[in-house]
């Protein structure tokens, strides 16, 4: 089962390697990883999608908490958060296919970020599943290049995961 784990860490060099090292040496699987600063420049937020049963996820949380630079760990349930990934896809696009692809972009809320005589580059930000479907739809045109970020997630409603000073 997949779990979304939000981790607040001190923005020190080497923190990311401590976290990924912990996952590999304890045999936990990372499906995706996204790291970035928060509104507090001293704190970074890492979102990890990990695969494992309840016992594994409990151990992941506890072991992460043991790292000195980890400030907070929270596993987010699917229905309590918004999760997004950003993806950019470069497609084969001869002139006669442009309008078709534009329609797909419109229907899927993807953005056209670049066009050449033979290609088009689309950008889409959505949940993991929606991106998978999007890939299916555009694949027939010929994917030249595809790049996506890891998932980031935020809680619904007024609750928040923040670091106290």
């Amino acid at each position, binding site marked *: 089962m997949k779990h979304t784990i939000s981790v607040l*860490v*001190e923005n020190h060099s080497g923190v990311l*390697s401590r976290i990924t090292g912990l996952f590999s040496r304890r045999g936990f699987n990372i499906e995706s990883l996204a790291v970035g600063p928060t509104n507090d420049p001293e704190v970074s937020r890492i979102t990890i999608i990990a695969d494992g049963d309840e*016992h594994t996820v409990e*151990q992941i949380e*506890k072991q992460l908490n043991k790292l000195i630079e*980890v*400030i907070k760990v929270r596993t987010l349930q699917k229905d309590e958060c918004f999760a997004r990934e950003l993806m950019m896809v470069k497609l084969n696009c001869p002139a006669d296919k442009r309008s078709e692809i534009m329609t797909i972009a419109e229907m899927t809320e993807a953005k056209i970020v670049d066009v050449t005589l033979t290609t088009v580059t689309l950008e889409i930000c959505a949940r993991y599943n929606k991106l998978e479907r999007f890939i299916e739809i555009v694949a027939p045109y010929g994917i030249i290049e595809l790049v996506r970020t890891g998932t980031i997630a935020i809680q619904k409603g007024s609750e928040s995961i923040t670091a106290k000073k």
Partner: protein
Amino acid sequence: MKMKASQAMVECLKAENIKVVYGYPGAAICPFYDSLMDSGIRHVLVRHEANGGHEASGYARISGKPAVCIATSGPGAVNLITAIATAYADSIPIICITGQVNTDQIGSDVFQEADITGAAEPFVKHSYLVKDAADIPRVFKEAFYIAGTGRPGPVLIDVPMDVQRAEIDFDYPKSVDIRSYKPTTKGNAFQIKRVLSELEKASKPLICIGGGVFASNAQEEINELAHIMNIPVITTMMGISAFSDDDPLFFGMLGMHGVKSANTAVNECDVLFLVGARVGDRAVRTPLALEKTTKILHIDIDPAEIGKNIGADLPLVGDAKYVLRQMIEKAKPQQHDEWIAELNTYRQERVFEPAKAGTVNPRWFIDRLSRAMPDDTVVVADVGQNQIWTATGYHIGKGGRFMTSGGMGTMGYSLPAAIGAKMADPSRTVMAVCGDGSLQMCMMELATAVQHDVKVKVVVMTNNRLGMVRELQTKGYDGRETAVFLDGSPDFIKLAEAYGIKSCRVTDEKSAVEAVKLLRDYDGIALVEVIVDENAATL
């Protein structure tokens, strides 16, 4: 106050009341050594960095406070890793200070450069690569705090040469505040009530003590609680000597090499109260079966240990000393005479089979030795057959202490750890028990003991074999014994002589009497070689 960062490092150690450090110099740590020279802190030149780490470990285990070891960059630092991993596995607080190449050279593979913070990462509680000399006071303060609090463990501080040479304004912080590190010490009152109520309801309760009891210095508390509630006690290997063997409530060490009374107790009890024990695979081979039949109550300061190896019905996070104190206040006397009587029937008399000519039965010798040595002797077992013979056969008197590399099983631990232990408390007799294999992994430290006149006692069990592996091959590999023959070993008596160490060899009961006298009475370093049958087994 303005000073060199290397001087500041020394001031930090002084502020932490460090009297002894174990180290091995090299170019990258020379600025620090230069400042250390006139500091009044005693430097013990070890003969290998890993042993320096073990010496610090032995010192820390007896003093109860973080101890310091030092190595230079590159190979020096990398040599320390075994000691770091050993300390990590047994939760021993050591501070490892390593030199590093100049900041601007890091990453360019210069002479004696190794990414030690990266390499040691899996085995440290925390580590620092100091890039700004101004951070030194804070880093040292934090390092000692992190190493010694919560679940203790090794902390590494890697300091590049140019950082050591920089000038800083020194002011040692009075307190530490790490927002992401707040270990729980007191136990949750509600959980404590529930644990007590489960123990009261139990008809066959059992307490199992691990190394956490020493980390927390809770020997007195666990003794008190067990006696108030009249609950039988067993230990893991790391918990040995938290209870005296003379105590009627004590039923020995459990596990693969444990004693019958302890293992039967685990299988028969209805409530198992684990105190600072992580239920390692050598202690409980089938935790899943145990958690099905037995109610598990588990105290640990590290929440990650609760539920990791065995599911706990009642988890209780906290420092054993505090938690047990809280429990003692509320504990009511219980009666478990039948249960204790049942367990008493599983106690086995020690029967020693006669050994073949020219050898002695190792269990007999250990038993004999333990009854002759002072009660408060610190005995450090190495790893292998000698460890099991000592763990199960050394009779722990009141105030005695047993130590070993329990988690990592690091051969060559005993002698250096004994040196550290003896320096932490010179008033006690400290004795290393090792095999001829393990001694040869650390015998260079005999020179360290001689140089600094650290009066340790060494018992080496010679069977010319890597006995534990030999035994495994005999039983598990159809007797195909390979790579376990120690032919070519030196004459250990001559070796001791070469170091100027008093020694004798035990080949029969008569020479054993002389040897025990030497170990007990001689005011100096002594080495006793005990000749053991190559087929003597632990199981």
